[in-house]
């Protein structure tokens, strides 16, 4: 048993870290977040050149065919860099959904251009009730046409296709089709833009049944939790660096236990979230019987921990942590947006309760 990265996984992580440091420094993050869409065409084509846009998809569609664990490592680095724009919506949400549900012909048509970096897509799930429960989806396709409104759709303004989760199936819509109206929703996270999307009798191409959503959604949830771990790691690194250099009372503030223990707790929370995310990725990859529970554990822990780590990081920075100029609030904003995406800690605790308390047999699992 080896609970850690092998050599090729370490290589992937290191090269992703180097890539983001070179192509997506904080100056670029800040430049893009000030634009309407947070999308950088140049950065996008470089992501595609690296093979990142096709990282876990089959080679026959132009993907790199790596595993879920590799996706998680990439997302961790993307989170550390606060990668702006539609990577999560296009590759992690729409890409995994197409990979799981679409026919071969549909994959050639939609997944292959995503792998090549030529197209972008997003998934529309949320409705006015604001629920992540599939049972609460009201929008229904009638005669292959969609009518209704979806909210909190990420990156819809720059997506070529919007994949709509309806009560009676999953449908792909051309975002340029008439009857599609995309309006910005102004959220806290400036690096990932949200939209409301109205559909007025828009034709949709059926991709599959909603029953097939569980797996792509689990993969996306784990990937999001991994991205949150990356953000936590960056916040921790910044706080520790600051505690070593900032002086008050003639000493670096990191010498004071009140500050040092905040950092120790940030470390504990970050590492614990990472353990949970790594295991969720492994369990999904190997179709382990506890994969669903593992994903909920990762997301519930990361949801609370990324907020807590953000709070501690800003507290350690004192007044500087509260300024626009300091990068911490950008991570803090992302953490809040990610906390609710795919269900917050309360949602996943209830989901875990259903899997454990309500399940007939609870078996003791050891090391």
């Amino acid at each position, binding site marked *: *048993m*080896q*609970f*850690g*990265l*092998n050599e090729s*996984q370490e290589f992937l992580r290191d090269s992703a870290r180097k890539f983001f440091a070179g192509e997506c420094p904080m100056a670029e993050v800040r430049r893009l977040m000030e634009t309407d869409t947070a999308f950088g065409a140049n950065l996008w084509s470089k992501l595609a050149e690296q093979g990142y846009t096709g990282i876990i998809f089959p080679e026959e569609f132009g993907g790199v065919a790596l595993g879920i*664990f590799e996706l998680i490592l990439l997302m961790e680095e993307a989170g550390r860099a606060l990668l702006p724009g539609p990577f999560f919506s296009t590759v992690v949400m729409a890409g995994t959904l197409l990979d799981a549900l679409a026919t071969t012909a549909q994959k050639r048509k939609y997944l292959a251009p995503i792998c090549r970096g030529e197209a972008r897509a997003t998934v529309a799930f949320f409705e006015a009730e604001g629920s992540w429960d599939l049972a609460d989806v009201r929008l229904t396709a009638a005669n292959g046409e969609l009518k209704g409104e979806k909210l909190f759709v990420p990156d819809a303004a720059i997506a070529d296709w919007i994949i709509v989760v309806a009560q009676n199936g999953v449908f792909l819509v051309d975002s340029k089709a008439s009857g599609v109206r995309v309006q910005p929703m102004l959220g806290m996270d400036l690096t990932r833009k949200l939209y409301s999307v109205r559909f007025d009798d828009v034709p949709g191409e059926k991709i599959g049944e909603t029953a097939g959503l569980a797996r792509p959604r689990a993969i996306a949830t784990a990937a999001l939790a991994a991205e949150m771990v990356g953000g936590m790691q960056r916040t921790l690194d910044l706080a*520790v660096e600051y*505690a*070593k250099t900032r002086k008050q009372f003639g*000493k*670096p503030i*990191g*010498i*004071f*236990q009140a500050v*040092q*223990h905040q*950092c*120790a*707790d940030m*470390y*504990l929370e970050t*590492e*614990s979230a990472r*353990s*949970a995310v*790594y*295991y969720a990725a*492994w369990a999904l990859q*190997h179709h382990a019987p506890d994969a669903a*529970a*593992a994903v*909920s*554990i990762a997301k*519930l*822990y990361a949801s609370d921990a990324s907020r807590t780590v953000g709070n501690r990081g800003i507290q350690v920075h004192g007044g500087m942590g509260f300024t626009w100029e300091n990068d911490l609030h950008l991570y803090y904003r992302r953490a809040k947006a990610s906390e609710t995406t795919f269900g917050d*800690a*309360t949602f996943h*605790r*209830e989901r*875990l*309760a259903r899997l*454990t*308390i*309500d399940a007939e047999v*609870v*078996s*003791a*699992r*050891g*090391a």
Partner: protein
Amino acid sequence: MDLNLTPEEVAFRDEFRVWLQANVPKDWAEWREKPLEESFPYLRAWQRKLQEGGWAAVSWPKDYGGRSATLMQQAIFWEEMARLEAPPMANALGLGLIGPTIIAYGTNAQKKRFIPGILSAEEIWCQGFSEPNAGSDLAALQTEARLADAHYLVNGQKIWMSYGWVGDWCELVVRTDPAVPKHKGLTVLLVDMKSPGVEVRPLRQMTGESEFNEVFLRDVRVPVENVLGKVNDGWNVAVSTLMHERGAYGARLILIFKRNINRLIELTRKVQRNGRPAAQDPILRQKLAQCYAEVEIMRLNQLRAFSRITSTGAPGPEGSIQKLFWSELNQRLQQLAQELLGPYGQLLASDGHAIDKGIWSYGYLRSRGNTIEAGTSEVQRNIIGHFVLGLPRSY
């Protein structure tokens, strides 16, 4: 990343499983409720049986009677022990902490003299570290040892000594040079607890039991050949023992935590709250799920730490994260049990109405010590801050 057992790990598990099924005592349930003083001979006999099978110290090198087991194999060993509800071994500190320290620092003569007795449980070991004025600041300890001919003359007081009442030998940290900075004047002595001048008294703790002892040392003579490691290098020797303490704890604890959380889930289905099963109370569901998640994360952190230690070769500050995590989690878990059981949670083992023979009232009180023993949470956070994150030392 590969969480499947390797063929070697499977072979190890299967070999031990077969042996354990054939040899595990069937009457432990009758003994486990009795005071340790009564059951101790039973536990000695059980350890001897494990030793005869070559299973008493799987982590030790083969040359010393162990199996050179990897950390993962050690975890498998404890999992199998827990699965069949095998009794613990009598010489827990000797096998887990002090034996490995003697193997690392001892002379050939010391190894030859002490290792067999540790393995066979003929000589029980205890640990003399903490003092009334040296708890977290262990290096400030004052028990002094003065060289007089071929002996050290030891005077002082130790506290919180587990197994002191039954200990034959003690790993004792003493001050041999009061003139140098505190970490540099310490030495570890191997002390015969039957020596004249050693007085052991029970220390009654808030649970009502006496797991620990106070030990008074008055002009105790210890021959110079019983110095473990180098004179005035005792700090490094003691730290090596403490690293084993923080590392080894976890593997066994996870199984206890898993059992407790699963027991709480069972109780949630039975206990009534506000006129319905507690399992339907949304707030208790949230708290139980949170606890369940954290117990699982404790297991995953442990596996990751094992893999890291396996690649770096020695237990390190990873143990501090585990200690911090499990001790605080256990307090939350025990509080959750109290919330779940309502007024029944407070009932002691001797009360006829007590649920699960009073383990939850005991667990609640006992867990209060978890964030203090084996290095307080504050000390663990200092270790993480300084040794892991590289922040300046605060003390």
